[in-house]
């Protein structure tokens, strides 16, 4: 039992010392943020490697949605500060828009 606890402590210590920075590095490579502000997506075009998880956050006082033109992804209504995430596994050009305010259009390019 004692051995188990020690092993646990060592694992946690290792995770803190090595794993977290490593995890951060991995996340930084495979995550991207898009802001929804003033009825627009920013950046309007973003290029990311395959496997990237993209996060959209709505900063407006009005709900928006994130809907791809080919219907491959579709968020629910995002109220203020709500977030939507989608992981792009395959290379390609993904055009999307807000289905409530279709003048809002943008693109994710996956390499």
């Amino acid at each position, binding site marked *: 039992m004692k051995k188990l606890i020690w092993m646990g402590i060592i694992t946690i210590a290792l995770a803190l010392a090595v794993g977290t920075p490593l995890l951060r590095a991995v996340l930084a490579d495979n995550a991207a943020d898009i802001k929804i502000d003033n009825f627009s997506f920013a950046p309007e075009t973003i290029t990311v490697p395959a496997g990237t998880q993209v996060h959209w956050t709505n900063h407006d006082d*009005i709900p928006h949605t994130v809907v791809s033109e080919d219907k491959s992804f579709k968020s629910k*209504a995002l109220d203020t500060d709500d977030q939507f995430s989608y992981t792009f596994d395959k290379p390609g050009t993904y055009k999307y828009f807000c289905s*409530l305010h279709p003048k809002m259009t943008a693109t994710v390019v996956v390499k």
Partner: protein
Amino acid sequence: MEHNDKDEILHDHNHDGIDRRGFLKCMAWAGTGALCLIKGGVLQSYSLSRLPELKEKDVQAELSFVQISDSHMGFNKPANTDVVGTFKAAIDKINALPITPAFMLHTGDVSHLSKPEEFDTVQQMLKSASAKDVFYVPGEHDVINDDGKEFRDRFGKGGQGAGWYSFDNKGVHFIGLVNVMNLKAGGLGNLGQEQLEWMEKDVKHLSKSTPIVVFAHIPLWSIYPEWGWGTDDSAQALSYLKRFGSVTVLNGHIHQTMQKVEGNITFHTAASTAFVQPKPGTAPSAGPMKVPDEQLRRLLGITDVNYRRGEHALAVVDSSLG
């Protein structure tokens, strides 16, 4: 053009068109509310502050109804943290009108997030209004997660397709259109082929002297396409109405009053009962605009519409809540 200092303008005109300067003057008042009446080919326009001076015969009509719009029940951001309170004020305003309106039109964005409890609140509150019947068309906020199923189940029974319909009252033909479904990337409001075909058939049998009222959420005239304030295929819909003598188009969506007269068609947008949006192009984007508390109720409002047989157009009166 006669112009006097009492905020009243009179135009003689023998044709259908309305003097452009007169129209602009009318529009300038719209922010605070204006009454436009056309009698015997003469446009009369009054600012709302002068309504008490109007005699009873001036407001007599064969048909009177009220338009409410953009109640956005559920909205709770700084632009208005009490949309229930301002909606109540709108109902009080309706109940204080000198004539009980025959019915109400709600031109959409009943709810903020299409939630059942938001729809419920509006339905319950409207039971205390003097006018009992309400005819709804959805706004884009009412059809968010289910393509409008919940909205149609509650408000659109008997409608066709996505929920469009028509009805007659006192010889006036009303057409409720849905232009918030299947919006295309980069586009504006959208009616769609099926609805257009239905509408063409719907008005075919009517005599050209039938007054027509069309109501829909997103404006059916191009107000400011950059902000999506227009409908892609509205010209097609309006072409079916060219032969009629009197057509009135009522919309919401832009949360401010605007009027335009084009040939036989009078366009009008209603104020919201919930929050204000900027004037076209005066801000980086549309969206809720915070105004000083003491100004808010003056910028929200309802629209009262009167129809008198034999007159060219319907009289549209905007009242603020303040």
